[in-house]
């Protein structure tokens, strides 16, 4: 016999509507990242040298800035979701868990912002 009210019991289990979105977005970002990773790996191997001029020219060429920005953005997003699960699974103490979850969120946001900024800066330097 429980003294919990029906409402309390339902709230305890959370909403049934957004539980799947974490899982789903992880899959969507994975599906998007797969071809981008193949493209990026083959492109980097195709570069004749890894000198400054060759690398920045390649980054700025054609659709490359868009694809690169997408890659960094999606990788940070996918990484944020994945790290969150790992932290939630393996860090039992709620204080440490909260600190690590915040840290992972901030680092991944920084990675996304910095990556997009760097790609745009290189791409627009040629245009200016």
């Amino acid at each position: 016999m429980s003294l919990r009210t029906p409402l309390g019991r339902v709230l305890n289990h959370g909403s049934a509507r957004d539980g799947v979105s974490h899982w789903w977005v992880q899959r969507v970002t994975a599906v998007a990242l797969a071809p981008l990773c193949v493209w990026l790996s083959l492109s980097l191997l195709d570069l004749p040298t890894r000198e400054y001029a060759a690398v920045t020219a390649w980054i700025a060429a054609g659709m490359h800035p868009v694809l690169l920005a997408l890659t960094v953005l999606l990788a940070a997003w996918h990484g944020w979701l994945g790290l969150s699960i790992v932290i939630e699974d393996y860090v039992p103490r709620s204080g440490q868990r909260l600190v690590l979850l915040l840290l992972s969120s901030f680092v991944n946001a920084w990675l996304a912002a910095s990556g997009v900024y760097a790609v745009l800066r290189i791409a627009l330097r040629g245009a200016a």
Partner: protein
Amino acid sequence: MPERPLSPHVTVYKWTYTMTLSILHRVSGIALFAALIVSVIWLMAAAGGPEAYARAMSVLASLPFKCLVAIAVLALCYHFCNGLRHLAWDMGWGFERAQARRSAVVVVVVTLLAAVVLIYALFRVGAGNA
């Protein structure tokens, strides 16, 4: 305390190699997060101009860092192949035990082949100018 479902106690099961592959997916994911940090620093250096880029490359082209790059490439190949395996499972394919064991072997073989080719090609290109 509310009663909540518990994660399976993995220590009570007999070890199978598919378990190792399962945890390696997380390990390689964490390695790729580290690789993403380094990649973004490299991009920021390229955005900062030739001097900043040369400074970053002098660190990245050093031997210890080349080993880390090789590990990152291996992690990428593994996470990519095993990720496709996970996506197949999400579609409901390959869930039978025999299928999962066979796909595990395929993932390991393809990962090692792809990683060897990629690492070789990467350092062959790098040797010319670094």
